[in-house]
């Protein structure tokens, strides 16, 4: 049970991340519980969040959740049940009822400071969209080059790991020998093509084992990152350079039908 409680502490710390917004919401729910006169608001905005907090930390809750949930490492979603934004905003609007404008400024500043300035648009995962698909132009340009004609058979192509997330979001007629589940460590899957494609500029592509793997997987196209050197010329293995775009070389393997 102690282990579960400690796990809950780890979960809340991970959920809070850089800020302390759940703490602000908790203070707000205590304030609402103590001062709110309307019973239904006191119960749903004050008491219920406090009970939810208790339930979250109660070790047995985690035991039940992990038995019922189909996904691992999702216990943090219990915290979604605590309407933190609503409770915080309601507490603030109530507290500063007589001085709304000053209260509004103070509340906004409090949210910014307590969040540690975690503006979502500063996230490393958010970038300026290159197109309406919100996937890299490189993925689209490569797909447009290798995509089969209307009515023709689908093609299989081996891509560098950084592109496998996007290819099939654009065109499902392109199949791949490995996908995102082989790239991310959480699954711990192994695939021979992935192993050969997942290289750095220091190690470089090793053409012989790479081609053995892609031909085994019936990959008609091979897309190589131009910033990563190959140990030998792909053309010497019968690959035909079809195009170069956005830092990638697209090779057609004529040995694969």
């Amino acid at each position, binding site marked *: 049970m102690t282990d579960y409680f400690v796990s809950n502490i780890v979960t809340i710390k991970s959920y809070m991340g850089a800020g302390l917004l759940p703490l602000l919401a908790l203070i707000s729910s205590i304030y609402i519980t103590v001062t709110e006169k309307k019973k239904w608001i006191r119960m749903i905005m004050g*008491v219920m969040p406090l009970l939810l907090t208790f339930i979250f930390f109660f070790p047995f809750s985690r035991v039940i959740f992990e038995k019922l949930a189909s996904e691992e490492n999702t216990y943090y979603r219990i915290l979604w049940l605590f309407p933190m934004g609503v409770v915080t905003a309601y507490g603030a609007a109530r507290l500063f009822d007589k001085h709304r404008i000053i209260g509004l400024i103070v509340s*906004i500043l409090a949210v910014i400071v307590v969040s540690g300035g975690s503006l979502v648009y500063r*996230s490393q995962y958010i970038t300026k969209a290159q197109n309406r698909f919100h996937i890299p132009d490189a993925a689209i340009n490569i797909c447009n080059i290798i995509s089969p004609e209307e009515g023709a058979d689908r093609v299989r192509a081996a891509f560098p790991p950084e592109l*496998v997330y996007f290819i099939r979001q654009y065109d499902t007629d392109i199949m791949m020998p490995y996908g995102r589940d082989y790239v991310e460590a959480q699954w711990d899957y192994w695939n021979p093509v992935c192993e050969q494609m997942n290289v750095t500029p220091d190690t470089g592509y090793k053409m012989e084992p790479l081609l053995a793997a892609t031909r085994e997987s019936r990959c008609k196209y091979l897309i190589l990152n131009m910033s990563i050197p190959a140990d030998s010329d792909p053309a010497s293995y019968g690959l035909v350079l079809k195009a170069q775009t956005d830092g990638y070389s697209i090779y057609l393997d004529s040995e694969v039908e």
Partner: protein
Amino acid sequence: MGTILSILGLFVWVMLIPLGIGIIPASLLTDRRRTLPITFILGQLLSLSLFFVISVPCMLLVTYGAFKYCVRIFGASELALFVIAVIHSIFMVRKKRRLSTISLDLQSGVNKRSLHSIVEALLPGELHAEAEEYIDPRGDLYGRKQRYSREGKILWVVFAFIMLFQVYMAVTRASFDGDDAYYVVESLLSYETDTMNTILPYTGGTTSLDFRHCLAVITMWIAFIGRVTGLHTTILAHTVLPFFLIPFTYLIYSAISRILFARKPDRRPMFMVIMAFFVMFGHTSISTSETFLLTRTWQGKSMLANIAIPLVVFILLWIGEDHGTGVVKSRDYNPWGPYIALILVNISSGVFSSMGVMLTAALTGLGALILSISYKKLSILLRAFIACIPNVLYAALYLYLVRYY
């Protein structure tokens, strides 16, 4: 031309039809609750629930071209419901006009009074309190739509700007999330190949039905919208849906604020502005519901956290308010009103995520228990339990699929 048709299609299938069919469940509510936001929310929930009921049998029973059948049956059902809603609305408006003392004025053509009577019949919660009601010592303005002060109006404008900024950023900024390689591709696969969860999204290989995700049919719903609008589902998910989903979430918060500030409406825009900042700065980790709203808007998990769960909170406040203000004792009160909404939310939570049925049932149970004890009304708990029957059935179907299918 194609773009215009797509925009028109979006307007019809995402806005007009849900708003229209929302009139059917909304007509079961007390006048005060029959507002434009609640009608629209109920319409969306009814539409999603209907989609679940149609898409799951298609997925399980049709071997080839399952999605094609799903599109045809759901599309026809939505249109049929919309026609029923229109006929129902005409009857409600006529009934209202017959009862109206100014009926003679309303018989001829479209004028301000006839429009007023339409709103009175279909969306009575949108009517402002009249001047005489403000001065009537016996009048009760509680929960009625009221006018805002100048400060309140300015704050609503400020909120609108912040929300539009969030929508603008959602459209112009790309957010990377690995799960898109699964969920967004699922939608595209249905859109392009008429299959439903039988192709591996990551690689394209064929597979047996993916039980873990198949009941969360929101990816299929996105594919449906793609099919009827002609929009590539990746554009739809990443660029178009945030236009609708972010304001929709705020619509729910706005409905919550109407209950919280029933007597002091000027606090509502202040609440909404703080809420909007909380959402923007709630990205303290990748797990918060606020992060999901602004970076993974189109994923079912985000809709669970930012639509289904806030809606359960809203309905719990609604039930509590009805009991707290004594509305439940009035003659025209339908005690099942909020629970019908709760049933629709519970079904929709399963549409968003398999885990959704567990989370919304837990929140419903906890909130109903608290209210039941507070008001010493066992009926609250019993009705909430009945409203969770869809969750139980969903879980049973899930277990059946995993073990025996």
